């Protein structure tokens, strides 16, 4: 029998995450929007609230709660600030290769400090020559003694300027079919974050470029098997990366619906709240239907993931559906607000901008369809 209900404990996780978002994140949103920077206080609070520890196994100082609990947390945080949800989502994506492929030494060295929130993580795959096609990347490595020498540039990297450890994918200088994933630490010689992006939405999360110029990386920092780095990166992106975007999308979608219901009940036209108008009700119902469907897709995928089942195809469906649905919901929310929806005083204007940034990360909707079609045809 399939059980579609959350456990009492999961409901309590939701409550904890909601309280955290409402008390520690909400009042920092205007500042993040204004400065277009991640808030140090929010990053610190995320650590203190154990949000970085969720997916890290207990033996390495984490909570070992798995991916359903993580989705619950991301959903609640993103409802208040998608930018913060995004920062946390990429954090978990960045450390997943260490959890899945790291050596015992690497796990002991990094995971406890990451779990405490003392270190912030990220992942760097995308480059100007390779986003949807990660094999097109040009960042390269060559072996020199016991070290690797890394050269190249990465773009659109979340937490680029604030991360302490970054999982970086690079290509063998001599063999275009061989890739390695490395743990790069802030301050390593030859590595520096360069340009900071100004984004349409999710302004409160830091996105930027990284440059590697003869950056020397000790071989202890190689993740997984030499030459098999593409698998390391794609395994993490396939479920943790897509699952994280589902959390961001669901949170934003729920926020759009909540704001719309509130406005529709308060806005009086023709002597009555506009929530009495059938056209408005239709929009609200559409938003609710997609939210319910998206939740089912998302939590189905995480429950499979928690059971150790292969779930990347299910995540592709959930990621496609929820990010597209959140965009539609944001548009409807702005529409319901009339002229007010175009004003920055109303959160829905931010939701609309944020919703357009949900798409590309962890693979565009087109790429999700490519994956889903491959699944169907296989």
């Amino acid at each position, binding site marked *: 029998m399939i059980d579609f209900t959350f456990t009492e404990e999961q409901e309590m996780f939701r409550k904890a995450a909601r309280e*955290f978002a409402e008390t520690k994140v909400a009042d920092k949103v205007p500042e993040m929007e204004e400065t277009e920077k991640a808030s140090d206080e929010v990053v610190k609070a995320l650590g203190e609230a154990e949000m970085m520890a969720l997916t890290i196994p207990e033996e390495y100082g984490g909570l070992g709660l798995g991916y359903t609990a993580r989705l619950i*947390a991301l959903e609640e945080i993103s409802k208040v600030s998608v930018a913060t949800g995004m920062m946390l989502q990429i954090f978990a994506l960045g450390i997943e290769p260490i959890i899945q492929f790291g050596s015992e030494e690497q796990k002991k060295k990094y995971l406890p400090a990451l779990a405490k929130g003392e270190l912030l993580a990220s992942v760097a795959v995308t480059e100007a020559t390779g986003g949807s096609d990660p094999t097109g990347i040009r960042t390269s490595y060559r072996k020199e003694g016991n070290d690797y020498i890394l050269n190249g540039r990465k773009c659109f990297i979340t937490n680029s300027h604030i991360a302490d450890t970054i999982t970086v994918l690079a290509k063998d200088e001599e063999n275009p079919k061989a890739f390695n994933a490395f743990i790069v630490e802030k301050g390593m010689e030859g590595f520096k974050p360069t340009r900071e992006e100004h984004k349409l939405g999710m302004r409160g999360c830091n996105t930027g470029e990284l440059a590697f110029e003869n950056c020397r990386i000790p071989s202890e920092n190689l993740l997984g098997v030499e030459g098999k780095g593409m698998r390391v990166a794609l395994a993490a992106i396939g479920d943790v990366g897509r699952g994280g975007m589902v959390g961001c999308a669901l949170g934003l979608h729920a926020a759009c619906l909540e704001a719309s219901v509130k406005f529709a009940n308060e806005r009086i036209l023709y002597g009555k709240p506009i929530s009495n108008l059938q056209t408005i009700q239709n929009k609200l119902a559409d938003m609710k239907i997609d939210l319910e469907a998206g939740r089912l897709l998302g939590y189905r995928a995480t429950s499979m993931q928690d059971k150790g089942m292969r779930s990347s195809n299910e995540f592709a469906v959930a990621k496609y559906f929820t990010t597209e649905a959140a965009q539609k919901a944001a548009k409807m929310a702005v529409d319901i607000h009339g002229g007010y929806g175009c004003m920055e005083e109303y959160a829905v204007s931010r939701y609309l901008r944020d919703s357009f940034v949900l798409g590309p990360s962890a693979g565009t909707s087109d790429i999700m369809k490519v994956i889903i079609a491959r699944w169907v045809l296989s």
Partner: protein
Amino acid sequence: MLKIVVCVKAVPDPKEAHKIKIDPATKILTRSDVPFVLNLVDKNAMEAALQLKEQLDAHITILSMGPPPADNIVKECLALGADQGFLLSDRAFGGADAYATAYTLAKGIEKIGPYDVVLCGMASSDGSTEWVGPEMATFLKIPVVTRVNEIVEYDGEWWKVKAGLENGYRLVRVKLPAVFTVTRDLNTPRSLTFSGIIKARKKEITQWGIDELAVPEESAGQKGSPTIISNLATIDSKRTVEIITGTREEKAEQLVQKLADTGLI
């Protein structure tokens, strides 16, 4: 070891208060689909207990009377850091007023065993009588201090607390065991944490009914409640709009006059 009992109540979520309706015939609140949450000021009582536990060797017991779903809020207190929980739940406890509630809670406290301090919120957001604390103390035959907003001295048998009055405060020295009802000014309650929730997995909630408590049926629930509610009504708060016209000066003058007429200024 300081043995603390914190009494907490599950109340309808104030955020969904608009869904609560009054049955015109029975004068009973219908709160069917409104979820239960921990009464707001009980969180301050809980926080006080946790702060005491951080500074002294203390053990925290949670006690609540309510329907079975109220075990949620007991669990929440365990996740916040309490050590054990008791839920007094029985059909016979239903419809209790402050008096019957205080009596049942007092029976629960006696059954739990020796205690030094009983903490509870000043009032519940749904009943708001402020009686349960003092009545419980009366049944337990121990002193009570109501509306505590600071625990000044707490090392030893005699405690000193600051308690609110309408136009000032009282400094009260009281010998334990005692009941304290607390206000929201006492502290800032902490939030739930994921690790606290995990730790609560191992903590137990014991449920007691009327038989376990050995409360006579005529003293429990509605039967044991002397309170008679003569009327209960929803306040209608309609807004009206009036447009004032004229020059700027005339409008200002009229506005001031109207505010003065209503007694607002």
